[in-house]
């Protein structure tokens, strides 16, 4: 049994920190999806995407983080497109997979577990861009833009934040002035995930600055449109590998037919989109917490000090319990809110609550994980 199993394991190129590989504790920490209330199909979904991400992405995750670059991104996007992962919530008629928000969360969770940075780019593409198009694009726009976004030939993004408008996003200054059949855009956007790579972007601009929040309109912008350019890719502390940059609009003419949703009603498109964005992106921290457990728990069973495995010491056991229970509680909150959304019940308060709770807990779990791994948490694993 052991010979064949070892051959298969070595051949699998599983990404495991060298420390745990030595201890031969390569298995990831199992997830109890019965407790999580997942259906059989969702359990199968998790297993399928986990296998796909471990085999296709995990070998590159380390380098992506180090270099803040994902050279294989476009190929990986196409592979995800073939798997049907880029349009989880898009209807089958558009070429999507026709599943729900909880299914989308499961996919993003497992992706973030392998590489949180790629997970973020995936979330920006599949939820911020694709899902907004699903919800607001008219037939002509869907026909024009959806297919390539779903096959992975095109990368999607969404731009609302500006250098001086983050929390107060409604005070954005990007101006869209009507000129005949076009709107001329002038200004910038900042902190835009997938900015450097995106072929299709949803951009929010002020069509009526006097009307404050009632003067915002959403536009679909294509890469290569004259007057639209991207500036420096940001060198971030975390989520390295998810390219983020500034967008520059200089007399950029966008046809009026590219308005997404109603004119001057963009704030509703934006705010309702934000609820779902928070919901789905909360799976990022969940994946991160799971990854911390995957790394830390086996290590505690292997590392010895004072004559025993450090996992026997109460402080380490306390940390294991804290990490596990935080993750479990976050999961239940997220999955419950997702199920409600899938039933058509959207609670803005809970969507915001979920990402607040998951993100804060992920930071805490990561800190606990660092304590468990000791000095090994500080070094380069490759």
């Amino acid at each position, binding site marked *: *049994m*052991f010979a*064949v*199993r070892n051959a*298969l*394991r070595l051949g*699998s190129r*599983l990404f495991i920190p060298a420390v745990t590989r030595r201890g*031969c*504790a*390569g*298995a*990831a920490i*199992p997830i*109890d999806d019965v407790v999580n209330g997942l259906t*059989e*199909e969702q*359990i*199968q*979904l998790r*297993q*399928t995407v986990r*296998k*796909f991400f471990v085999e296709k992405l995990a070998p590159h995750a380390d380098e992506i983080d180090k270099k803040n670059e994902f050279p294989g991104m476009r190929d990986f996007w196409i592979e995800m497109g*073939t*798997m*049907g*992962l880029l349009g*989880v919530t898009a209807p089958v008629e558009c070429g999507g*997979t*026709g*599943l729900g928000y909880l299914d989308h969360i499961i996919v993003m969770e497992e992706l973030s577990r392998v590489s949180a940075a790629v997970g973020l780019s995936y979330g920006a593409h599949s939820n911020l861009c694709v899902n907004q198009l699903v919800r607001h694009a008219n037939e002509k726009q869907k026909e024009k833009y959806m297919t390539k976004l779903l096959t992975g030939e095109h990368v999607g993004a969404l731009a609302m934040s500006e250098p001086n408008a983050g929390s107060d996003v409604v005070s954005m200054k990007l101006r869209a002035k009507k000129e005949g059949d076009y709107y001329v855009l002038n200004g910038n956007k900042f902190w835009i995930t997938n900015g450097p790579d995106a072929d299709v972007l949803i951009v929010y601009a002020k069509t009526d600055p006097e009307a404050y929040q009632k003067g915002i309109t959403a536009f679909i912008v294509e890469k290569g449109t004259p007057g639209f350019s991207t500036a420096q890719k940001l060198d971030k502390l975390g989520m390295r590998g998810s390219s983020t940059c500034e967008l520059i609009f200089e007399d950029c003419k966008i046809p009026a037919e590219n308005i997404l949703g109603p004119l001057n009603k963009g704030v509703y498109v934006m705010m309702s989109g934000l609820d779902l964005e928070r919901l789905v992106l909360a799976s990022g921290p969940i994946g991160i917490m799971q990854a911390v457990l995957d790394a830390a728990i086996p290590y505690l069973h292997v590392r010895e000090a004072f004559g025993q495995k450090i996992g026997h010491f109460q402080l380490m056991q306390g940390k294991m319990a804290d990490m596990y229970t935080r993750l479990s509680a976050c999961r239940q909150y997220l999955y419950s809110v997702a199920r409600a959304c899938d039933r058509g019940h959207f609670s803005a308060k809970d969507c915001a609550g979920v990402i607040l709770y998951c993100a804060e807990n992920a930071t805490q779990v990561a800190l606990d994980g660092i304590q468990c791994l000791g000095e090994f948490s500080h070094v380069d694993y490759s």
Partner: protein
Amino acid sequence: MSGRVLVGVKRVIDYAVKIRVKPDNTGVVTDGVKHSMNPFCEIAVEEAVKLKEKKLIKEVVAVSCGPQQSQETIRTALAMGADRGIHVDVSGKDYENLGPLQVSKILAALAKQEDAQLILLGKQAIDDDCNQTGQMTAALLDWPQGTFASEVSLEGDKINLVREIDGGLEHIKINTPAVITADLRLNTPRYATLPNIMKAKKKKIVTVKPADLGVDVTSRLEVLKVEEPPQRQAGRV
């Protein structure tokens, strides 16, 4: 040759899991442990689906013997492209004692019942490493066997096969109906895409009992003890 292919898929402990022996030494811990389709069975499913895509066979039927959870393994085969599934329900003590001899009797009975032209299996399961089921099934049916296959091609009503053997590669030609067991290099199994997983939900899985097939699953073997291999000692230079 066109017709029906039976593919055997076994639910085993996932290859990446660290195996632990039960404290009472009666077996290994399976509760709460991640299970998946035996890797060689995945390769067998892939080969069957490829034959169907080349229109050389008409239907792929996935078979698994085991408890209720074996249906998950059949679902994976359906998501990879199998057309329907047969779950032979064996659970409890019978399942713990289920081995190649009983499974091959079940497969032989199903092959006759389903009028199968070809049986595709993995060369062995990664939990017991028996490497017997394919061979026994062929013997029970009195069919030719092509084991450790690394290349399979159909030529009329015959099959050209390349086998991986100790001395190298052996090229043989066998008649159909036949039993083929898949080795590692036969192909690279595809991922089940989400749309295919959705489609697989509509495919049928039928449950039968071994008794329905006239098979007695009582084991002639008794497991006395299961223990870890001895710890590796340091070498000497």
